[in-house]
C-alpha cells in the first residue's frame, strides 16, 4: 500500500530565538492509517503538527496534503484537516452547540445540524449542548475540542496528546470515535509520549527525538524490536546457578541469587515459550517464589536504546 495523504519533505523549523525544533524531517502518512508520533516532551511533535496545520511557518521544506501544498494551496489543504490541540482553550461564554457549529462554518462548510448532532452524541456531549463551556469539566472541554475538529468532516484528524490528563471513560470514548473514523477512511495522526497508547491504537509508529525522526515502523515490528518487558521473581531460597533445564538467553539471576529476571517481548509467546511456560518449568524444577512483578520498558529506555544503536 502506497497512497500517501501527507508528504513532508525536508522540514526544518528554527524558532525566533534560534532554537531548532525540527531538523530535516521527512515523513509520509498513508491514507486511512492511524499513525502515532511518539517522542518525549520537547521533541517537536506539536511543532510538526503546527507546521502541517498552518499554525507555524516552516523555515525550510514543504508539506503536501492530499496533493495540495500546505502553503500555496492552503485552502484545499486545510479544509481536509481537523486539529485537536494539546492545550485546552476556553471561550468560556459560548455554548457547546454554538462553538461546534462555529467551527463548521469557519471551515467553510454549510450548516448541517444533523452532523453536529451526530458528533455531539458520539462524544457524549449531547446533554451538554446548551451548556456554556466554562461550566464544563476539563474532560468535557476536551471532548468539545474533538467535536470542533470533527464538525467539518475532515479527511485527516490530528490529535495532539489526546489522553494527557484524561480519565478512563474519555479515553475509551475517544478510541471508539477514532476507530469509527478510521473505518470511514479518515486518516488519524496522534502524538503521545505513552508507548502503551501507540501500541493500543496505531498501525504505524514514528519516533521523534530532538526534532529528528528517529525511525518509522509498522507497530508490530517496532514493539517486537523495542517493547521488551521484564518479569522479576523474588525467590524463597537464593540460587547460585540456574538449573540446566531452565537455561535460556532470557533468564538471569540478580540480587545475589534472590531474584530471577526474565526479559521478554512478543516473540517468546509466539514460539510457545513465554511466561506461562516459564512458570510451569519453575514448578517442575521445584523453585518457589514469594512475589513477582513485571516492568515494561519505558519510552525512555527505548530512546536510550535507539540512541545507542545509532552510530
Amino acid at each position, binding site marked *: 500500500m502506497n497512497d500517501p495523504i501527507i508528504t513532508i519533505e525536508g522540514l526544518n523549523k528554527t*524558532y*525566533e530565538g534560534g532554537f531548532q525544533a525540527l531538523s530535516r524531517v521527512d515523513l509520509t502518512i498513508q491514507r486511512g492509517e492511524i499513525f502515532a508520533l511518539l517522542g518525549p516532551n520537547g521533541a517537536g511533535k506539536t511543532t510538526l503538527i503546527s507546521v502541517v*496545520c*498552518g*499554525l*507555524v*511557518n516552516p523555515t525550510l521544506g514543504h508539506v503536501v496534503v492530499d496533493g495540495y501544498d500546505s502553503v500555496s494551496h*492552503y*485552502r*484545499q*489543504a*486545510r*479544509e481536509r*484537516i481537523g*486539529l485537536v*490541540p494539546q*492545550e*485546552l*482553550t*476556553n*471561550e*468560556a*461564554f*459560548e455554548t457547546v452547540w*454554538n462553538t461546534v457549529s*462555529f*467551527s*463548521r*462554518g*469557519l*471551515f*467553510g*462548510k*454549510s450548516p448541517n445540524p444533523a452532523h453536529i448532532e451526530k458528533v455531539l452524541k458520539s462524544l457524549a456531549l449531547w446533554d451538554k449542548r446548551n451548556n456554556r463551556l466554562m461550566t464544563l469539566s476539563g474532560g468535557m472541554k476536551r471532548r468539545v475540542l474533538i467535536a*470542533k475538529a470533527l464538525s467539518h468532516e475532515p479527511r485527516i484528524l490530528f490529535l495532539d496528546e489526546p489522553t494527557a490528563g484524561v480519565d478512563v471513560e474519555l479515553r475509551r470514548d475517544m478510541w471508539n470515535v477514532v476507530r469509527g473514523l478510521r473505518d470511514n477512511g479518515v486518516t488519524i495522526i496522534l502524538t503521545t509520549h505513552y508507548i502503551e497508547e501507540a501500541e493500543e491504537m496505531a498501525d504505524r509508529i514514528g519516533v521523534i527525538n530532538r526534532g529528528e525522526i528517529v525511525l518509522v515502523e509498522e507497530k508490530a515490528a517496532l514493539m517486537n524490536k523495542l517493547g521488551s518487558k521484564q518479569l522479576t521473581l523474588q525467590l524463597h531460597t537464593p540460587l547460585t546457578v540456574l538449573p540446566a533445564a531452565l537455561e535460556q538467553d532470557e533468564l538471569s539471576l540478580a540480587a545475589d541469587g534472590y531474584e530471577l529476571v526474565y526479559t521478554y517481548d512478543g516473540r517468546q509467546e509466539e514460539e510457545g515459550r513465554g511466561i506461562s511456560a516459564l512458570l510451569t518449568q519453575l514448578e517442575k524444577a521445584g523453585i518457589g517464589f514469594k512475589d513477582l512483578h513485571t516492568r515494561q520498558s519505558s519510552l525512555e529506555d527505548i530512546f536510550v536504546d535507539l540512541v545507542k544503536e545509532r552510530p
Partner: protein
Amino acid sequence: MNLYPVRAIYMAEMARTRRTLLQSIVSPVISTSLYFVVFGAAIGSRISEIDGVSYGAFIVPGLIMLMLLTQSVSNASFGIFFPKFSGSIYEILSAPISYLEIVVGYVGAAASKSILLGLIILLTSNFFVPLEIAHPIWMLTFLVLTAVTFSLLGFIIGIWADGFDKLQLVPLLVITPLTFLGGSFYSIDMLPPFWQTVTLANPVVYLVSGFRWSFYGISDVSLAASVAMILLFLTASLATIAWIFRTGYRLKP
C-alpha cells in the same frame, strides 16, 4: 471569498455583543448622556452659540466621534485579543480562510457595533437638543468610514498587545486624549493661534470637523482635508494588517 467562515466569525462576534449588551451599548449611552448634562447643560449655558449653532447641538458630532473612536478600537482589539489570549485562535489560523476573510469577519462585526452605537447616541442626543443633519449621506459616510478605520486600528492593537494592560494603553493614552483635544467640545478657532496650529497635527480634528460639517455645514478644516485624512488612515491600517498577516507577526511563530 467563502461566505460561511466570514459569517461564522461575524455572527460569533455579534453574539458576544449581545452577551455583553450592557457593557457594549448601554454604558456608552449613559456616559454620552452624562456628557450632555455636564457639557451641554452646565457649560453650554455659559457659551451661547458657536457659528450660529447652540452649544448643546454643536457637541453632538464630537460626542459621537468620541464614542465611535474609543468603542471601535476597544471592541475590535478585544475581539481578536481574546482568542489569542484564550488560545482558541489556533482554530482561526488553521482554518481554510484567507486573511481578508478573517479581517472582514472581525472588523466588520466591530464596525457594525460602532455604527449601531453611533446611531443610538444620535437618537439619545435628540432628547437633549434639536438636531438637524444637513448632509445625511455624508454623515453616514463619515460614520461608516470612521468605524471601519478605527476598528482596523483596534484589530492591529489586539494583535500587537500581549497583555490586558497594553490593550487598555492605546485607547487610554492615545485615542481619548486626541479626541478630547480634537475639537469635540469646542471649535478650534476658539484657541490661541499657536495652539490652533498644533491642533492641526491631530488627525482627529479632521474627522470631527468633517463629521460636524455633515450636520451643520460648519467646519474647522476643509471637507477635502477631512476626507483625505480618513482615507489616509484607512490605507495605513490596511497596509499594516497586510504586513501582519504576511509576516505572521505575533500570530505565527
